[in-house]
């Protein structure tokens, strides 16, 4: 019987929250098709995370604990993924469409016969067992629906697009994967890992994002946005103009050519609302737009709009949040 296999990195026993979201999608397909959800945790020291999988009802957890599977060593990750597939006999393999999955996913799919959907944002499983995958195409201008025809397929899932499922603890087992990997034989090797200083919450993970656009006028204005974001335990992002102008680091950029965010609340300040930017925030649950220009296209996508100069409205907003919500 084919399984639904979730593959996640678990370096030093740490599994990211976004990887847990994969279990949500996996469970949906599993329930529709009556298939078992299994997981493969890959990475040096991955075994320690197995219990986390059991917590979410995954009984069988394959573990590839190998000294070569380190952060960024995707060749090793790929070989371990292949081994996991050999052991788990998956019908559907789920990976995150992140820097790992977008490289490993297609390579794995090629080895498994070519079935793949990338950048999936939703899985729908009908009662008749029909499974479809949705993904944005044409820069978010359209949504494509793919139908699962035959096993196995690989699906890479955009982070923050699925819900972490409800916990349902089971007593599970760990199945170690036998890897005959020669570290010297790997064709690629990571020489250096450079992480940019990201203070506070990461943009992609933040439940609240305050984004600034051309209307902020300069780097100084972003300090005010930072104050608001800190108060809401969120992060600050930007549309393309401030990033291009060097007001903010390029890593802050949200949009088609930047990051895709999916916060509960997105506050767009001084952002006109170019399609390029909107493409990156379409997953936000509530969009608030603050802009002086009532004609700004951002109001066409915002749920709540405030027509005002941000310099005048953000300071009282900070004040009122402190008063009404508390810090």
């Amino acid at each position, binding site marked *: 019987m084919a399984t639904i296999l979730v593959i996640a990195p678990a370096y030093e026993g740490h599994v990211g929250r976004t990887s847990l979201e994969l279990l949500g999608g996996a469970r949906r397909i599993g329930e529709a098709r009556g298939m078992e959800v299994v997981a493969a945790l890959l990475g040096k020291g991955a075994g320690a995370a197995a219990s986390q999988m059991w917590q979410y009802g995954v009984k069988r957890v394959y573990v590839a604990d190998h000294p070569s599977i380190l952060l960024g060593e995707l060749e090793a990750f790929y070989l371990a993924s292949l081994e996991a597939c050999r052991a788990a006999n998956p019908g559907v393999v789920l990976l995150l469409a992140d820097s790992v999955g977008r490289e490993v996913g297609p390579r794995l799919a090629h080895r498994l016969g070519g079935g*793949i959907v990338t950048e999936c944002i939703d899985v729908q499983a009908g009662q008749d067992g029909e499974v479809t995958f949705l993904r944005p195409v044409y820069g978010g201008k*359209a949504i494509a629906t793919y139908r699962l025809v035959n096993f196995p397929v690989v699906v890479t899932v955009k982070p923050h697009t699925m819900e972490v499922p409800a916990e349902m603890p089971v007593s599970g087992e760990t199945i170690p994967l036998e890897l005959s990997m020669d570290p010297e034989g790997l064709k690629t090797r990571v020489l250096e890992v450079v992480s940019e200083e990201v203070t506070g919450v990461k943009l992609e993970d933040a439940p609240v994002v305050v984004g600034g656009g051309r209307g902020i006028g300069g780097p100084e204005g972003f300090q005010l946005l930072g104050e608001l974001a800190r108060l809401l335990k969120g992060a600050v992002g930007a549309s393309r103009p401030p990033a291009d102008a060097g007001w903010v680091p390029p890593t802050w950029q949200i949009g088609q050519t930047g990051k895709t965010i999916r916060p509960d609340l997105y506050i767009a300040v001084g952002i006109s609302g170019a399609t390029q930017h909107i493409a990156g925030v379409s997953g936000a649950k509530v969009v608030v737009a603050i802009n002086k220009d009532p004609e700004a296209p951002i109001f066409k996508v915002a749920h709540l709009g405030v027509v005002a100069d941000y310099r005048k409205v953000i300071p009282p907003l900070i004040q*009122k949040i402190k008063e009404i919500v508390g810090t």
Partner: protein
Amino acid sequence: MEIVVCLKQIVDPEIPASEFRLDPVTKRQIRGSHALVISTYDENALEVALQLKEKQGGKVTAVTIGEEQATEALRKALAMGADSAVLISDPPLLEADDLGKARVLARAIRKLTTPDLILCGCESADWVSRIVGPFLAEELGLPCVTFGTRIEPRDGKIVVRRIVEDGYHLVEAALPAVVTIASDETNTPRLPKVRDIMAAVKKPITLLRMADLGIEPGSLKEMEGRIVLQDVAIPVREARCEFIEGDTPEEQAERLVLRLKELKVI
């Protein structure tokens, strides 16, 4: 260094959403009167290749699968500085899926040259599937690095700066290799020099048919055995903005906070 850059010609991805139309039969965008351009990151890939050539010497070959009009994209690549250009064109190729395209490219590359490096854009600006690059690496049995922005040759290998969520990794890869290229400030595509544009008009473009590559039409759509594109639709936005009014900014701020509290987002 022998470098092959795979390009795709697409309909201008910068057109406004209001101009975007889909063909319900082919499930693809209708071109209309819009411009055809080289897909965004493919131009970055070409730029990386040209910079490597300038540093290391060698030859850059641009390859594309497309219709007759894709020669325009190749002319642009030649104008930017590619040494030769190859158009793989045959009607059945229009239907090819990512696996089919990767196979065709792999055959063409093997037939034409023995490259040290094959570069692709990290994604096409239209379908954004990010599949063909890694598939091509698998077809050719070569190491693969995705989302690289800079490539440094080092001791017969390359070091690729691969961008990741919170920074970058420096990844060493043995050659030959396939690298997919993302954009950064060092690989903004150059504006072709006018003399090169004029010279590019006269350069020959190699044309390959499926028969030249020994590819059967049946092998171009194998992915459909696993997964089928069922539908493509333009999403409808239901949101209508609720404006928070107020006589003073303070009043607006207070009403906004109360409304956000109601919506349980703060």
